């Protein structure tokens, strides 16, 4: 019985909408987390270069996203 419910749920998970929504939500959550960490690093005096290295992106990319406009 519980196996049947399990299967039904997994079948539901095959609905691309559910998966896509989760990915989109995860991306938003990740953006928030990244902003928190970048801000924190800047407050502690980290350079854009150092932050970029840890994030695995270019210095320009980080600066463009979070630096002063």
């Amino acid at each position: 019985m519980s196996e049947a419910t399990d299967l039904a749920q997994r079948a539901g998970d095959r609905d691309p909408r559910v998966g896509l929504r989760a990915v989109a939500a995860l991306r938003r959550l990740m953006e928030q987390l990244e902003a928190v960490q970048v801000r924190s690093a800047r407050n502690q005096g980290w350079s854009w270069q150092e932050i970029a290295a840890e994030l695995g992106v270019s210095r320009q990319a980080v600066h463009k996203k979070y630096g002063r406009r």
Partner: protein
Amino acid sequence: MFERFTQDARAVVKGAVEHCERSGSRTVDAEHMLLALIDRGAGRGSFALAELGLAERGESVARALEEARRRAGLSQTEAEALAGLGIDVSEIVARAEEVHGVGAMSGGRKDKGRRGGHRSFSRGARDVLERSLRIAVARRDRRIGDEHILLALTARPGVAAEVLADHGVTHESVTRVLHGGGGTKAG
């Protein structure tokens, strides 16, 4: 832009800053403007909210906004989608706030936060103010009042609009209360 604001609208903006300070948030958000609008109790926007039964439901709104903050500003649906992946958003927010302060996870990525002792407006809050200006212009109203701020809050997709809609306050219902329609006749 602020010189075109009515006294009521200015009071809402000022109230939003106070709400922000009391909650210990880093930036003034659209949510703070909503809270200020509710407890202002004067002006056309507050009148519309009272007409729609929100005056006595301020606590319920505050609670809903609080829950949204714990979800990092994500909607209930988004948080549930993440729970489906085994991700507990509220746990992540709690840990981030422990280290980085209340509201750390609800700001936009370009929000600068506190600077020089006073708080800055988040991108969302600035967007609400800009929208309220556009709404006033579109309606050919010469001043920007608190009712335009309210309309802007309902029109802008986000936590404030979601919470308002959950309490029966939508762009349509506010417009109806403000400008009549459906049975309202002059004289």
